[in-house]
């Protein structure tokens, strides 16, 4: 509760009109950003504990110490991520806070496109390397990033639950498809009608 309260309180402070509309003075805006960053960072340890508890319920896991530290990235909004760029193999855990199953397209900044992605059942997942547009590459906020592409793949997440996808770097020839430049879209897959219950 102590860890989460800071975000709870700063979130409340930032419902004040000057934070919503941007009419605060610049040094106040900077302080808001700092406080929000710090309070979000505090919550990461709570998520870490929760995910670790849930993960350890999986009977197949022989060695709990193999879990490693949970890593967060707050730069994905500028297509930069120190973890995906610096590690060739990673477990990517995606948590769905929504009360329904979600199909989510994940975009991870990478320096190489040669990754094999597998789903929670160990089955291969088709991934694509999308070039990051030049104006995004030029953002000052991502000055330390070396990623020029994003690995894009589809994830399927249970309601209020998580799924872990494994990224493994593959030496040798490219194993991933690349988004192709095209002017004709007749090759798209047929559309499957979906019935919905309201």
């Amino acid at each position: 509760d102590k860890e989460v309260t800071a975000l709870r309180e700063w979130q409340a402070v930032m419902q004040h009109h000057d934070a919503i509309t941007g009419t605060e003075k610049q040094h106040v805006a900077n302080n808001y950003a700092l406080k929000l960053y710090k309070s979000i960072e505090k919550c990461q340890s709570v998520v870490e504990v929760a995910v670790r508890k849930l993960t350890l319920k999986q009977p197949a896991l022989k060695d709990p110490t193999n879990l490693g530290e949970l890593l967060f990235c707050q730069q994905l909004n500028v297509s930069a991520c120190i973890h995906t760029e610096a590690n060739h193999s990673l477990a990517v855990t995606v948590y769905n806070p929504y009360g329904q199953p979600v199909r989510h397209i994940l975009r991870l900044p990478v320096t190489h496109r040669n990754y094999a992605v597998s789903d929670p059942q160990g089955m291969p997942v088709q991934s694509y390397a999308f070039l990051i547009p030049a104006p995004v590459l030029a953002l000052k906020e991502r000055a330390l990033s070396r990623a020029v592409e994003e690995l894009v793949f589809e994830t399927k997440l249970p309601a209020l639950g998580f799924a872990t996808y494994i990224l493994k770097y593959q030496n040798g020839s490219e194993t991933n498809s690349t988004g192709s430049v095209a002017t004709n879209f007749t090759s798209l897959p047929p559309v499957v009608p979906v019935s919905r219950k309201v």
Partner: protein
Amino acid sequence: DKEFSVQTKSFNVHFDGNGSLKAIQIRATGQVVDVRQDFGYYRSFVGNNYGTNRASGAYVFRPSEQEAVLFARSNIIAHIVDTPVLTEVHQKVGDWMSQTVRIDPLSDAIEYDYQCGPIPPDEGKEVVIRWSTNMTTGGVFYTDSNGRQMMQRRRDYRPTYNLTVTEPVSGNYYPVTSRIAIRDDRNDLQMTVLNDRAQGGTGYREGQIEVMVHRRCLVDDGMGVVEALNEGGVDGKGLEIRGKLWLQLSSIAGAAEQHRDMAQRLYMEPVVTFRRCSSLDEYA
């Protein structure tokens, strides 16, 4: 150089030879809605804040002219990326404006991932993204009230007093905290734009939705903040922003279900975390 189209769950989305959005066809009914997207900016009014000489600034949006300066569509440079999981159209609109249009074949929302800035500091500019359609709206549009009901807004009108309009653009601008919509009752159509942050917007021009995405004003508006809205960004040259907008088109009856469901999903977007593992096989 060629026109092309992309299929979603219910639509065919048509682009022109420049890679600009041209029309959306609803496959079930065959209806074609012309949808053009423009990027532009209003020049900020510069005043000394005495009497009626109020400047545009942090509190006040006051353009010096009532028409936005638009980026030429013919100058857009587009690059198309097509995969089964996602189709992207990368558009460079100008030196400091670009966007990626993402179309997911299994979703009916078109995603716009825009980037704007640094706005050149030669004059105050208030940057807008605008969708123009052939829908008949009569100057009526809808904005949300911070996630509660959609409020009806009418051109040059206030429900509780007689309004004399002196500022046609800003007098019709309203807060858009999560979404803005227009309706065509005769053709049973609603177009909704959802955003990822509180912005300002309007739909007072016939068949149009306009959202303000960035501002840089060089003069304080004298309303109390005592600073010009002129953020320097990381290097002091001006703030660069990146954000997302989502466009939905549906029948009027189905619109609320669609935009409310999507807003919930955007608010509760999945959280991504990583782990380095000594043995990935064992972890899996």
